[in-house]
């Protein structure tokens, strides 16, 4: 193994072929005759299914073929000579095709020489034109069809009879049964050239090999028996099946040799066929699956390979690994976004292999001497060594006792498995791994307690929360892997998502609330508060206070926030708290929702989700793009610490009383809802009287439903508006909703005002009882309440009927989510499977493995979406600013553009600029 290091060997190709009986016998180490496995002493019988020529599964024993022990011997094949040939189930369709397409007498393909040549030519053509296996199959299917149609052999003139297949394995020729033996004899006659026309490659697969005369017995390592606690042996399903085959095979041979009646022989023959069939595939349609004694169907060959739990998807495409850990996650706002807190217990188990070299041998020896549970003098964790791997590949476990002795034996060329230390690069992952940001590289911080911890800003890419989520961690084991992870997989390299070219890492929940509290309007902080907040940044010294009132010094929140911004940052955008549709700068100013950052100073505007939030944060986006990932990482680290500090100073809470609204507002809402219910009643009456105006293309009933839905949803909106009027920006719940921290105004109005119409499949509720939803209503009642309108609010509580309706709507939501996850999961699997092989070549073309060009330039312009500017290839404005920055005409345009991008007009702009000037004059005055 050691000598393999650095040598890259590759399997170039794998060829598939059918095993001939000769080959089976050749590769077989032993013939298997006895149906028994172990004798009384627990040793395998010779010529039995567990013959020790077939490999070893018990520690201590040696393989009789290769002499290897468990793990050394890969296992060897054996074979069973079948008394009578049987059909391979996997090939019945092919066999039918072959029988139909070839002459029953001379075995030639039922096509003229010209026809055959034509088909061959076409196949070559298809291949030449880059056709894949499926397309070639279309041609062969065509040729087989053509040959089947022919009634008389063009070679010997023999009249052909009709071949039918009795599923699963019986062939009939005009009712007369064809035994596998007869089938085999016929197929032996088919010449090689004729097979090629049918798409069979005779060099690797003669058709008669599809009729088995010898059955390959897989090595015991493939079907190990397990010893139960009671000492009983439990055999593998394959072994069970092989026992069945052997038994029947034996009986068949005896009966045949003894000259038993044809009927008995045939019955046994069919039974053998059944057992061999189920040995291959126990889900063959048309026959009952073979069962275990307990009634559980046996898992035979095909079942082992197939499906999600099968060999391919479960063991070959993905594997269980060492050097990994999984535990519950919890937040730690003091960690950097690219760190992960690893519990000491995990760090002790997880190791990094270190190659002992000249430069580190002394250090390594020191490590080993510490033993496997090393602690510093202060009792803190330090890394020990778990294993030492000698140059010959032997592993030595380091214990407290042997630590010193082992340390002395260490030489250059050894590998030492060192426990984790701070700064080791590990991969961190949360399922479902839907995108590449689900697995990122973090740096280790070994910590006490038993959870993995990371910065909250990294929750969005992992889609993690802390309600019990668990995550996985993998320790990289090679220098190449570490280099790759460090360069490509680190968290800061993934701030910008390749999905849409915006940030996926940024502030969440309390960060946003805190940003609002810190920067909204003229929030100010006294010396103690400011010192506390800034201490979180590890800053020493205070900036100059903006406001002085007598002896008291105050710092503005905007001033404090500006401390984490780069000094040359210029940015302006609209806050997320801006009311919908407000474009006037004056109004924006009034609610402080126009963010303007000049030279790293936040001049106006409230910092919220649009500034630092995940997915939306404009500042994060700008920094990651223009200042590099390292800078963006530092910014997020700093800003989250700062904001947590700020919210700790300010304090923040929300409760049920946040949804309190005055009595008259409640009354207004009730009145409003009454009016709406009345309107619906009128609609229903109009409908019943046949006076409702029908919508084009809708029935009367549908028209009524649409109209009623309209009225009721409007009513809900209005009640929300009324409630909203009484919930101002001082309300905690409103702050969260407007700043984008959590919740929405809809949630609030449902709590304070009215919940609104419940719907299933987008329609008002209608099912349950005959012509009504619940027995509380009259049959045929189409009014608001009877069809699922909930007029109560969450705060006031729901009436029993409303509660029932609400659960109906809620249930739909649950079902929807359940269905959606499985459906979208499958869609993604298919997408990945279809596109996984595509890559961008050096010439910018996107090609698949067959080197077919899929795109001449990725996305038509060759731009990486994660580097694009919201999808655009180049930020032209920025370039123009760089080049034309000083030109007066451009300057004018720029300010104008800036304003217009928030929907401002030229007229507003003049006001805006005047204001800005006025402010600047005022400010120094206030400072003094």
């Amino acid at each position, binding site marked *: 193994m050691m000598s393999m290091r650095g040598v890259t060997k590759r399997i170039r190709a794998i060829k598939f072929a059918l095993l001939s009986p000769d080959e089976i016998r050749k590769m077989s180490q032993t013939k298997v005759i006895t149906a028994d496995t172990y004798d009384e002493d627990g040793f395998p019988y010779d010529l039995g299914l567990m013959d020790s020529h077939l490999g070893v599964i018990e520690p201590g024993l040696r393989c009789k073929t290769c002499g290897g022990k468990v793990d050394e011997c890969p296992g060897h094949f054996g074979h069973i000579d079948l008394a009578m040939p049987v059909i391979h189930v996997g*090939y019945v369709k092919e066999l039918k095709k072959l029988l139909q397409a070839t002459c029953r007498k001379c075995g030639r393909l039922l096509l003229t020489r010209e026809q055959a040549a034509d088909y061959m030519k076409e196949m070559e053509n298809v291949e030449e034109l880059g056709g894949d296996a499926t397309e070639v199959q279309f041609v062969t299917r065509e040729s087989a069809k053509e040959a089947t149609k022919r009634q008389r052999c063009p070679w010997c003139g023999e009249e052909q009879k009709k071949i039918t297949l009795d599923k699963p394995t019986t062939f009939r020729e005009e009712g007369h049964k064809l035994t596998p033996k007869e089938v085999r004899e016929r197929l032996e006659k088919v010449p090689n050239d004729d097979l090629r026309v049918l798409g069979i490659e005779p060099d690797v697969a003669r058709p008669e090999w599809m009729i088995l005369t010898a059955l390959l017995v897989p090595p015991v390592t493939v079907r190990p028996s397990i010893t139960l606690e009671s000492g009983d042996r439990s055999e593998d399903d394959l072994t069970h099946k092989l026992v069945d085959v052997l038994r029947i095979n034996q009986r068949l041979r005896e009966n045949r040799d003894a000259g038993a009646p044809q009927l008995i022989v045939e019955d046994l023959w069919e039974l053998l066929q059944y057992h061999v069939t189920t040995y291959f595939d126990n889900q063959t349609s048309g026959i009952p699956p073979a069962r275990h004694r307990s009634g559980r169907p046996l898992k035979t060959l095909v079942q082992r390979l197939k499906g999600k739990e099968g060999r*391919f998807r479960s063991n070959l495409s993905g594997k269980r690994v060492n050097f990994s850990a999984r535990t519950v996650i919890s937040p730690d706002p003091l960690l950097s976004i690219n760190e992960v807190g690893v519990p000491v217990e995990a760090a002790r188990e997880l190791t990094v292999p270190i190659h002992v070299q000249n430069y580190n041998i002394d250090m390594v020896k020191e490590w080993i001497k510490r033993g496997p549970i090393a602690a510093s003098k202060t009792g803190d964790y330090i890394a020990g060594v778990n294993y030492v791997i000698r140059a010959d590949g032997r592993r030595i476990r380091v214990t407290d006792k042997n630590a010193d002795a082992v340390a002395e034996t260490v030489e250059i060329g050894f590998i030492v498995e060192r426990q984790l230390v701070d700064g080791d690069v590990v991969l961190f992952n949360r399922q479902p791994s839907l995108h590449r940001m689900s697995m990122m590289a973090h740096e280790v911080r070994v910590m006490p307690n038993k959870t993995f911890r990371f910065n909250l800003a990294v929750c969005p890419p992992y889609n993690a929360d802390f309600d019990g989520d668990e995550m996985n961690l993998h320790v990289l084991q090679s220098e190449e892997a570490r280099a790759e992870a460090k360069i490509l997989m680190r968290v800061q390299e993934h701030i910008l998502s390749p999905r849409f*070219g915006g940030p996926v890492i940024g502030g969440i929940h309390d960060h946003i609330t805190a940003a609002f509290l810190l920067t909204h309007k003229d929030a100010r902080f006294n010396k103690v508060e400011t010192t506390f907040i800034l201490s979180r940044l590890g800053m020493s010294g205070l900036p100059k206070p903006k406001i002085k009132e007598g002896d008291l010094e105050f710092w503005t929140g905007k001033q404090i926030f500006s401390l984490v911004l780069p000094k040359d940052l210029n940015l302006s955008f609209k806050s997320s708290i801006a009311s919908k549709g407000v474009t006037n700068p004056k109004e924006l100013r009034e609610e402080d929702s126009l963010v303007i950052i000049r030279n790293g100073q936040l001049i106006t505007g409230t910092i919220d989700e649009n500034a630092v939030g995940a997915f939306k944060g404009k500042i994060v986006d700008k920094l990651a793009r223009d200042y590099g990932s390292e800078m963006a990482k530092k910014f997020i680290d700093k800003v989250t610490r700062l904001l947590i500090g700020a919210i700790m100073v300010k304090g923040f809470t929300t409760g049920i009383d946040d949804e309190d609204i005055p009595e008259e507002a409640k009354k207004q809402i009730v009145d409003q809802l009454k009016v709406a219910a009345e309107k619906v009643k009128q609609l229903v009456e109009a409908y019943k009287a046949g006076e409702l105006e029908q919508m*084009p293309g809708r029935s009367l009933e549908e028209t009524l439903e649409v109209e009623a839905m309209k009225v009721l949803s409007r009513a809900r909106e209005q009640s929300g508006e009324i409630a909203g009027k009484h919930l101002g920006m001082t309300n905690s719940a409103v702050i969260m909703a407007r700043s984008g921290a959590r919740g929405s105004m809809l949630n609030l109005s449902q709590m304070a005002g009215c919940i609104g119409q419940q719907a299933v499949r987008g329609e008002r509720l209608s099912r349950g009882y005959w012509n009504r939803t619940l027995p509380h209503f009259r049959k045929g009642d189409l009014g608001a309440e009877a069809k699922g309108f909930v007029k109560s609010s969450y705060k006031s509580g729901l009436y029993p009927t409303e509660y029932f309706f609400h659960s109906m709507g809620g249930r739909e939501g649950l079902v929807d989510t359940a269905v959606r996850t499985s459906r979208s999961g499958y869609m993604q699997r298919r997408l990945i499977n279809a596109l996984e092989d595509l890559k961008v070549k050096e010439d910018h073309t996107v090609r698949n493995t067959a080197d077919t060009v899929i795109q001449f330039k990725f996305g038509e*312009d060759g731009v990486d979406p994660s580097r694009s500017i919201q999808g655009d290839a180049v930020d032209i404005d920025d370039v123009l600013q760089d080049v034309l920055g000083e030109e007066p005409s451009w300057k004018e345009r720029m300010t104008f553009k800036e304003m217009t991008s928030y929907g401002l007009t030229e007229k507003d702009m003049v006001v805006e600029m005047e204001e800005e000037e006025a402010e600047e004059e005022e400010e120094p005055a206030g400072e003094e």
Partner: protein
Amino acid sequence: MARQATIDALRKRGITKKSAELLADAGFTLETLEKVKVDRLKKFVSAKEADRLVKRISPGKPEPAKKSARAAKRPRAGAPEAPAKEEAEEETPTIPEKIAKPTALEQAILEAMHEVGRIIPMKVVRELAKKLGDLKVSKKNLKDIISRIADRYETHMIDPNESAGILSAQSIGEPGTQMTMRTFHYAGVAEMNVTLGLPRLIEIVDARRVPSTPIMELYLRRVAGEKEAAHAQGRTRAITIAREIETTHLEDVADIEVDMVNMQVVVKPDDHRMKVRGMEPKDLEEKLKKVQQMAAPKKTEGGPEKETSPLVIETGEPSFKKLHKLVEQVRQLKIKGIDGISRAVVQERGDQWVIFTEGSNLAEILEHPEIDPTQTMTNSIQEIYEVLGVEAARNSIIKEASETLREQGLTVDIRHIMLVADMMTNDGDVKAIGRHGISGRKSSVLARAAFEITAHHLLMAAITGEVDALDGVAENVIVGQPVTLGTGAVNLVYRPQGEKGS
């Protein structure tokens, strides 16, 4: 594909479509046909036709240059040197100019670009021209701008060996979990339901033959010279057309009754419904007369409703089976409209009237004289493929998928969707993402086996002696070696210092 090439080639030589197809199905290609004897051909086609065939195909006649079957599929591009006579037979369609001519400013930018010797995409050039607008920019500055843009453009390029496919698949698949399952009302048209969200996205990547809610958007052909007046009239015009294209079955406008005693079917037209659909009783009679094997409908005088007299159709012979059949036939009788379009609603959009239809039939709608074909839209990708070709289908996939995602409030870079669309349409027809489409046709046995229907792929690979070249991702993962993407695509050879190269 080869078959299609043969058919095309034969048809070029003036052979009827029927026999061309026959011959191609029999496995002939052009070359084999040249050598073949008349007697053999007679097995497949009539003697006369065979003679003609041999004459026409006989070697010597110049064969249009074609390198691949694909080129032959598009005769326009494939055979420029074909004899003029053949050209004349087919009306040469003019290829519409797809690329708008560059404006003066764009031209100036392009020229400057050439002088600088850098390349920036046309889209960026257009954008730049728009941004510069009437700004006065010196030549020097312009060149500076261009080279700076080119610098940035180059740094924004995707890296070689990037696994663009996986990136795109994840980018489209990941937001899938955030999408809704429900169908919603179509934006702006309360009357129409359309599949949206995840089901629609799945439908698109499945390349389903018919979408679950096929919808068309039709605009009226603009009438030259009319303006204000046209708008008011537009509505009536649109409604007339909508009525005209809407499929109407007899049972939609009339009550159909079975008279068991007299073994006849009585059709009672409903005046109101007839009027809504814009029909006259006269039209009905006309249509009914055309029903095959049907005795001419008789008018009976003075039915219970006096407005329109019921029509009676007799079976001719007393057979209940026949009567039953007749009733069904009469009920489903299409009296007007375009097949597949079950409903048409008129809406105003901007200054134009738009007809939204439930159901889709692009081929026939495009031939409607009053509908503007350039603005006609359908959400049936398969139909677009059949009528307008792959390129159109590809654009349609991009449009439908990105609109579905946008409607859900999810931003996905259009480049990802383009890649999926290009993959689906790569070899000339629309292939599904999945085992019946792209995944089932992968060149690697192991990759196919790992995806779905494992046993079948392995068994077939054995008898055809398939070789897995281990180029792709899945198969390399299976055998346990580095994949050929990203860092696995390159090799680094390190020669320690001091070691002499051999």
